[in-house]
């Protein structure tokens, strides 16, 4: 009895599914605001979103640094980090964001702004790390463009080795 019902339900659901797929595809083709069925590109979306990440100026970042309201995140590779980084900075490469996100979401970091940086005005790593952290649920992250060069030029505190 139950098997019979299930069998019937399965058959009906299959018919509904086929019918739905046909209607959905036809409707999507006909509507002016159609979207490409297989054409979703997360790469484009990520680029768009990275472009929306806020930047911060060196002076603002340094002010916050003096007030200890900031956590610098060095998005460069570990070797460059060990050769020298902003004092107190963590080293988080973009694909390591998931490992650190849980820690950065704890109460210890409440009210602390995360600022990512790398080296050179075109360097994409800082934006990638900031984006990856935001995507992991970190509340706020900004980018200090060309951060490392600006920081040493200004003569602000740096540190060598691991933290």
């Amino acid at each position, binding site marked *: 009895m139950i098997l019979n019902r299930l069998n019937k339900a399965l058959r009906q659901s299959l018919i509904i*599914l086929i019918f739905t797929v046909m209607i959905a595809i036809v409707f999507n083709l006909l509507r002016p605001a159609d979207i490409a*069925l297989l054409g979703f*590109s997360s790469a484009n979306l990520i680029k768009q979103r990275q472009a929306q990440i806020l930047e911060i100026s060196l002076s603002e970042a340094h002010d916050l640094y003096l007030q200890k309201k900031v956590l610098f995140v060095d998005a460069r590779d570990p070797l460059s980090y060990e050769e020298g980084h902003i004092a107190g900075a963590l080293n988080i490469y973009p694909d390591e964001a998931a490992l650190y996100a849980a820690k950065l979401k704890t109460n210890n970091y409440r009210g602390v702004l995360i600022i990512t940086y790398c080296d050179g005005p075109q360097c994409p790593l800082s934006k990638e790390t900031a984006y990856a952290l935001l995507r992991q649920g970190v509340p706020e992250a900004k980018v200090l463009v060309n951060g490392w060069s600006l920081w040493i030029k200004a003569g602000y505190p740096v540190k060598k080795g691991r933290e």
Partner: protein
Amino acid sequence: MIMRNFHRIIVPLCSLAYRLILAIIFYYAGIEKIADPGEFAVAIYNYQLLPDLAVNALAVILPWLEIIIATCFVAGFYVRGAALISSALFLTFATALTINLVRGLDISCGCFGAASGNINWFYLGRDLSLLFMSIFVMIYDRGWRAVFILRSTK
């Protein structure tokens, strides 16, 4: 007499009521999503569970599936099949929600189009109660006859 028939009356009536509630919810959810498939695709992507290739296809098909299931529920046509699909959908939503709540992602639910709030445990509870209703309908539905059963037993 009424007490003895209580189960026979109340179950089909419940099932009918659940069916109509599910229908209203599916209509609302479906229409909101059909209005802007691009936006819904982004909501699906945010769950970080599907490959790029599947995202737009799901964004196009899922809203229609919701509308057609709702229509089946209202019309009393293919109700068992529709209830089976709706149970499967709610089970899938529940899994996707749980995974991302555990991951701690702060993303839009996408339940009723782009404007719906961010995921939280309340949504999971709501989803599970809808899952219960769907399964109930799949097992006990007697169609609009439920109303006539009530009349004939009076």
